[in-house]
């Protein structure tokens, strides 16, 4: 197999949990040489699971596995003077450092951008945090949950009116920040010659969502007209049908906005009389009568299964899809046919099914192909190769609790 697209790029990850690890995983899965440095007790996501049979074990966390494929792992206590020194020596030789500690933490370890840039002028330092390195909330404690809800996304777009705004049920802000950081970070590496050297990237997970998702479609109008909208609990309040509806065995995303789609849906439903009424031929008028229309549609959907509804609607050009459970998505023949799902051998987990590369580069295929590292698995290899440390030196570091 040809090397991955990012072959030749070296990365040091000083990350934990989700955001920095997923950012670094994107580099690793596409061929960069990524070394992940974990504290001697390990990335805390090792305690998160899911574990096989729900038995906690630091080498058997599914979340850790997913987020750290194709990386080499070393242990390093950055809070010790010797640890900071080793990290500086490693950072001096890489293209990218990715981290997601609270602002100021890196500086307390002697690893702030100025110190690292002095050693390595071409270094791209990517810092990912919930709120960013500057601004009044930069020193606030925050998690994925806090970041998402500070972005405006939930209040506007997710939940029933009068009930709590919702997040996605996964680490949506962390993933969003990770992807944003990977893109801007890779650009900074790619364009180093044009830019005149490396630089520090300050990525806020909340800001990335607030700007590009919420801001994109809401801020111009709000600034100009002083009006704004809130969540409605319906997929799209302006047009109908456009929401999730229950069916016999789950739910479907019911969408039939354009006239051709509405007519297609009518054919699938056996051309019921009510669908031919004049005022129902326009998606805006249908939305105004959504209270009447949705129950009539549900009467029909409840008699059918989600796959059947999806297949018959799609065949008529109607963009209705089934709301897949995780299992249904994972088992769908489409993803199998595309080779999206993969299997990887891991010393402690055995053969593990994993999601494949998020996009396909035919000339330089991506991973994941190698499992997440065991804690400190590559200490000898990496410290030897990068810093010339031998077995005795590593034993001493181990004794002192540095690695």
């Amino acid at each position: 197999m040809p090397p991955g697209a990012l072959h030749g790029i070296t990365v040091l990850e000083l990350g934990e949990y989700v955001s920095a690890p997923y950012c670094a995983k994107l580099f690793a899965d596409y061929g960069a040489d990524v070394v992940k440095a974990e504290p001697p007790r390990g990335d805390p996501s090792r305690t998160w699971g899911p574990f096989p049979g729900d038995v906690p074990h630091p080498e058997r966390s599914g979340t850790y596995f997913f987020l750290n494929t194709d990386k080499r792992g070393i242990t390093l206590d950055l809070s010790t003077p010797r640890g900071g020194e080793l990290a500086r020596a490693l950072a001096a030789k890489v293209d990218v450092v990715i981290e997601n500690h609270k602002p100021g933490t890196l500086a307390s370890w002697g690893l702030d951008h100025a110190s690292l840039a002095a050693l390595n002028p071409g270094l791209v330092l990517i810092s990912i945090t919930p709120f960013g390195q500057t601004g009044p909330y930069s020193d606030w404690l925050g998690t994925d949950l806090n970041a998402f809800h500070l972005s405006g996304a939930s209040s506007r777009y997710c939940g029933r009116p009068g009930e709590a705004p919702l997040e996605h049920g996964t680490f949506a802000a962390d993933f969003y920040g990770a992807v944003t950081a990977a893109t801007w970070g890779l650009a900074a590496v790619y364009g180093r010659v044009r830019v005149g050297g490396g630089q520090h990237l300050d990525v806020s997970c909340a800001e990335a969502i607030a700007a590009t998702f919420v801001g994109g479609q809401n801020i111009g109008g709000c600034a100009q007209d002083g009006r704004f909208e809130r969540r409605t609990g319906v997929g799209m309040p302006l047009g109908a049908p456009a929401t999730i509806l229950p069916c016999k065995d789950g739910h479907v995303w019911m969408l039939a906005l354009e006239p051709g789609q509405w007519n297609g849906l009518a054919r699938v439903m056996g051309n019921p009389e009510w669908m031919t009424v004049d005022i129902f031929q326009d998606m805006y008028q249908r939305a105004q009568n959504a209270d009447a229309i949705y129950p009539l549609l549900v009467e029909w959907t409840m008699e059918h299964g989600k796959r059947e509804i999806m297949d018959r609607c799609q065949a008529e050009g109607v963009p209705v899809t089934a709301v897949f459970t995780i299992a249904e998505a994972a088992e769908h023949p489409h993803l199998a046919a595309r080779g999206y799902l993969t299997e990887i051998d891991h010393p402690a987990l055995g053969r593990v099914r994993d999601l494949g590369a998020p996009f396909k580069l035919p000339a330089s295929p991506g991973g994941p192909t190698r499992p997440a590292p065991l804690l400190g698995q590559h200490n000898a290899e990496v410290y030897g190769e990068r810093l010339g440390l031998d077995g005795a030196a590593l034993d001493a570091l181990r004794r002192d609790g540095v690695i």
Partner: protein
Amino acid sequence: MNTSDSKLPLSGIRVANFGWVWAGPVVGQTLGFLGADVLKIESRARIDLTRMLPPFGEGIRDPDRSLSNHACWAGNGSVSLNLKHPEGRALARELIARCDVVIENFGPGVMDGLGLGWDALRAVKPDLVMFSMPAAGLTGPLKDIRTYGLSLTSTTGLDSLVGYGDGTPIPVENAFSDPYNGIMGAFAILAALHHRDRTGMGQHVDYSQQEAVMQMVGPAFMDYALNGRSAGALGNRHPRAAAAPHGVFPCAGEDRWIAIAVTNDDAWQALVAAMERPAWATAPELAALPGRLAALDDLHARLAAWTADQDDYELARRLQAAGVAATPVLNVADLLRDPHWRARGTFIEVVHPLGFKETIYGAYVKTSRSAITVRPGPRIGQDNERVFKRLLGMDDARYQTLVAAQTIY
């Protein structure tokens, strides 16, 4: 165009962006923020539907005045080219021969139908990076699936995780996947450009929006892979049950809420102290995470009763000072007022080429060396003269003929 600015990493990279609606334009926007010369190829013959999305600048309904269109397309230039005309398609190929990247987000086969498929384009530009981002990829049984960005998530399992936990999935009311894929798509292109610069080879990127978004369910997928369990909606609870309490709680005022995440036992003690140690909270079984998880619903209900008549911002500041991760839940108007987003310049006012002021988002990543310039969204065809006359060397007579024939249109 940012050719005068040497501090931008992608200056010198030229992109033809056939993307439309939201995801495709944001791929171009991302590269444009980073310095590439991005030209959206569009036409008055088939106006992008987001150009007709209200509200409009100064309330005047016009395809060059849609405010959300401008925000989502800032960074793209615009060339207007009617691809229904054979000459329009020929000009598109001529332009692509001078580009590094082509972006498109049509269904599979549409570009082929226009004579702009991969084989045709690599013939005019052998080291081209072509980026295609259909809903479910270029191959496979679902490749022709019809979706909208807001429902694409349903086929990834992600929608099944969104809801209050009562068995009803709650639809996210807008296409989270569009800007997400727009930004990740730019990563894919950069990876392919890195490969090109190293090997001299271009390639056709097969970007399935479904597969890219499905990465977000990775932790839940692993539970299925390892234990055969398929997760359901969790409300705002921690996706891996590693924090409690963890949720959104009502505050004083209309639709005001606070998000609180207690990630360790010390933070719990800090919260208990901030609540002035009510009897229920000092129960010893709540001192450690497993006990709090076992009592989670009750815990959340009691916490909600405590937050209910307090000011969201004030309470967040107080809890932060005590060592608890707490933030107000912001609505759209708050984004413009909030001191943090104001301090970071998250939203900026620009003057559109038509003369009106509009607020769009600025550089949402802060870069210490690259000086990002954010331009307003494009007028249809604003870059025509530069592209056709200066870049392609077309003389004025031919240019005027093509404009009159509505080929450049």
